[in-house]
């Protein structure tokens, strides 16, 4: 859930930044809570529906894989992240799209599996330029494994009158 939450926060940040003009023109709070109940087939061209959404799904998949999820688990959580974006983020300006609901995680996983295998192949060649190409194909492996390597630990503190957290970070 922590990984899902981190990706969800990123999705909101990216959406607010990249769609700021569209949000200013057409975004409303009313859209945000009405749109999730009316999904439909969108009218976007293939450059959006096939290429850009597959690329987004590819990064969702690679993110979960880089957090040590199995192939099927990474696919499932990519699906959940994609649904979260379609139904709770993008609804500020658009209704959820049936094409995006399916194609983002499914095409993304297909692309992601290929990217991951090719990235491993490049890293195995063990020269700086092949490593660079490997990281370009799968940049998610650059995100440090904080929790797994026990570099960061957090413990919530909940008392009658206060809520807090104790965080430690080893260097």
């Amino acid at each position, binding site marked *: 859930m922590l990984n899902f939450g981190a990706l969800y926060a990123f999705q909101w940040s990216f959406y607010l930044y990249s769609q700021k003009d569209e949000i200013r023109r057409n975004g409303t709070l009313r859209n945000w809570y009405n749109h999730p109940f009316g999904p439909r087939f969108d*009218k976007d061209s293939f450059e959006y529906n096939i290429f850009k959404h597959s690329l987004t799904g590819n990064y969702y998949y690679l993110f979960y894989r880089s957090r040590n999820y199995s*192939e099927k688990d990474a696919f499932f959580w990519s699906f959940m992240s994609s649904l979260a974006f379609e139904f709770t983020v993008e609804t500020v300006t658009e209704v959820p799209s*049936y*094409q995006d609901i399916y194609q983002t995680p499914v095409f993304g*996983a297909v692309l992601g599996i290929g990217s991951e295998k090719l990235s491993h192949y490049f890293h195995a060649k063990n020269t700086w330029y092949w490593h660079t190409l490997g990281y370009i194909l799968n940049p998610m492996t650059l995100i440090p494994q904080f929790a797994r390597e026990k570099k960061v630990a957090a413990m919530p503190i909940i008392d009658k009158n206060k809520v807090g957290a104790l965080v430690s970070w080893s260097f």
Partner: protein
Amino acid sequence: MRLIFLFLLLINTALAKEEEYKFRPNYWSKGLHLAVGGGVNGTYYDANERFGNWGYGLNGKTDLGYFFTNRFAVEWSSNVKFNRVTNYLVFDTLITFGLRYRIKDFYVRAFAGKAPTVVFFNGHPPKEYKGTSASRLQYDGPVFGLAVGKMFEEKNGLIWFLETSATFQKLDDRQAIKMNGQTPVVVSREKDSSRLYSLYFMIGVLIF
């Protein structure tokens, strides 16, 4: 929407339990499987002379299936088809739900769903759209299809398939679209009675 949530429930169920045995062409393992393939298609356009006759092109498909038994599965699929018809580029997305049944190494599929069909004018609009700002048409309507395929297994465990399928599309609704920046805007909407008949030959692999 209900079908989508039912499918998500199935995906979740599939992840909760481990597969007991390996998937084989003649004995399917239960649970979630994803197949991806690509190939060629030929489509006959019965579209009131707006754009004509036969189109040929490439297509790619994915089948996300929940396999209930070693013979039977339900599927949620997408088949993206590109066609060149006279001056137009046709981009079709067939989103369908279906059933798959195995007979030895062979399988049959039956599916139905909806298919938005987009026709790009490429600077040559049909007569009735000349002089308008529309750059493409989007048709909507149901799609029905049947498929027959055969699965194979390589020594390294790779499962691959050959499949031939046929679809029938009923285009009930036609919308002319112009682009306003990055946003598609509908400039006119009419009823339509066009029909599409397609044949596909595909090759693909089971990716999990």
